[in-house]
């Protein structure tokens, strides 16, 4: 998924910072009006109108077991996943970061962490840990929904 591009979009979900391969990101928009889908999984925020296209929006925070509370900084990033557009609600978009391989390190081997399967690796930024997120994997369960 990461390809040869080493640029990442850093986002906040709750208090944690994550990085998403920039090439997956098509655009970043404010929190749109969404139409909820009855009986959908809890992380399925609804469908939105993106310039005439209907796009499903998932709440990554809920998906990763956090609380989904929206603030003025809450944003939707539109991702291209296998050729389909998908919106993802995140708490905050921080910056674009170029990561060289030496900056990255293996994720701490804690098997019990429930999110560990979505985490490709970690790196440090401003003395804080940033998790590299495999969005497609993180949303896999969402796809089945």
């Amino acid at each position: 998924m990461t390809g040869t591009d080493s640029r990442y979009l850093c986002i906040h979900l709750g208090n944690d910072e994550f990085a998403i391969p920039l090439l997956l990101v098509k655009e970043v928009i404010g929190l749109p009006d969404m139409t909820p889908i009855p009986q959908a999984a809890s992380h399925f925020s609804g469908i939105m109108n993106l310039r005439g296209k209907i796009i499903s929006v998932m709440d990554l925070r809920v998906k990763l077991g956090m609380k989904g509370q929206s603030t003025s900084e809450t944003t939707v990033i539109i991702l291209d996943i296998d050729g389909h557009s998908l919106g993802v609600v995140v708490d905050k978009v921080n910056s674009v970061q170029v990561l060289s391989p030496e900056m990255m390190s293996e994720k701490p081997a804690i098997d019990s962490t429930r999110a560990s399967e979505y985490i490709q690796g970690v790196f440090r930024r401003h003395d804080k840990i940033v998790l590299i997120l495999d969005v497609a994997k993180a949303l896999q369960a969402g796809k089945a929904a």
Partner: protein
Amino acid sequence: MEDFEKELKIGFLEEADQSLSDVEQCFLALETGSSDAENLNKIFRLAHNLKGSSKAVGFAEMGDFTHEFETFILRIKNGEIPADSSSVSLLLRCNDFLRDMVQGLKENLDASFDGSGLLSEMRNFQVGGSAETEPEAEAEEAADESVEPALEAHASAPVEIEPNLDLLAELMGTLQPAAAPVAAPAVPAPVASSAPAPAAAASANGHAAVVEETLRVSVSKVETLLNAVGELVILQSVLREQIASVDSSLVRKTVLQMGKLSKELQDVSMGLRMVPVKPTFQKMQRIVRDTAKALNKDVSIQLTGEETEIDKTVLEKINDPLVHLIRNSVDHGIESADKRKAAGKSEKGHVTLSASHRSGKLVIEVRDDGGGLNGAKLQKKAEEKGLIKPGLTLSEKEAFNLIFLPGFSTKEQVTDVSGRGVGMDVVRTNIKDLNGEVEIDSKIGEGTVFRIFLPLTLAIIDGMVVTQSSHRFVIPLAHVHETLQPTEAQLQTNHQLGQILMLRGENLPLVRLGDFFGLSAQHPATKMIAMVIRSGPQPFAMLVDDIVGQFQVVVKQLGPELQNYKGVSGSTILGDGKPALIIEPLDLRHRKLSLAKVPTPPKGEGAAA
């Protein structure tokens, strides 16, 4: 195979496919006697183009075949062979063979074909006796050349043409597309080969005085445009709602003018998807001809309203049902010549295929002047086959509709043309899938009319926007038969069957939209609106909180994560820019049935799918 070469071949096949269907009309016209030079020229040009291009891109078999084909056409053109039904039949068979070749090659670029039968038929085609000898010399020569396929077809072509100077001039034009890939193989191929093609096509249509220039645009581009325009219209309506609060009259005026413009823009861009039914109709001429021939009947077909436009996707999907109906008319509808004579009709049967717009729908009519349907006979047949219960009282229309039952076939003898008892039910299913309807009108001894009603487009539907527990949903209007607010007296709750709506002597099962989607806050049924749905096999009523209104909505696909979401056929964007789900009412009914059958609550429905 190199990519470049592959692209070249695929490009050629696309083009060949197009020109073959363009030219089929000319073959048929030949037979009906209008063997004017223009028709022959068109066919000749096609053969010549194909010959050149196919050799250039490396389809040698096709090149050899078209060479022979060209020679044969030239003989007709020069009057050595009359354009009668036997020669036209051969031409048509060659045309079919070429199409098969193109189709086969599309699937497998290395496919091989055996056209030797047709080749020798063309070579040995004899005119009645063989009285005329003088123009034969040349033809013989041409034929001799082609006996050895190794002989370069390219080189021989100009020799044949030489006597016809005017033809030569024409060929100058048509040779170009063929020559381009040869001359400049290093140039990006698709550009080189496709650019001159529209020009050639335009000149082929040249005999019509006014030639409208056309442009081929990919469907995805049109879709993108439609999306953008749709969004524009929505923004415009938002803007319009705001103008009351604006003081400047200039702003207000401009917004209103923009509104008109965006409406026009929407109409025009919607129109881009619309194509005339002509090509599909013309294919039907061929079907009638072949079917009639196979059955030894004399049947003519008349087309009207070929210019009527319809959404491209609808047109593509109506092709198969139409073929069935047309075959059916020729086979079952039109009687044998003897029978027709005995009934005092002309021996030649007539089938009319017409298209027209009627109240926002496209109506396609297949009319024959054959024997007509016998309602009583149909009913008896259906009873014999166990398709319906014996002793039912059916109206004439209901009896006619029996032919749409699966497994129904009226003719005693099964022919290879029709009569296998598949088909008519498929026809109806296909039409229903398009949100269309089909009805039958028939009079014994006078003929039968099949009338197909189709929506002009699948991209826009008339929908009823309803609310349910503060959600908004769109119900396609085609499904809604009537709406009413049920009274206490009309409602019955039955422990076995659930809630029932008694409507004018009918007992309709009542489904709550809110229940289906697991939405809470339900009102009593008397405070809600019941929508009677009759589009499915069994009528039922659906309860919703309220009706907002009736709108035309643009149908949008849902993402893959919602594709299997039951009860929903798509989504749309409402006037305020917010998305809403489009309900598939028949899904609700299925759910209702399964609930009725299985007393235990269904599992695994908490998730969206």
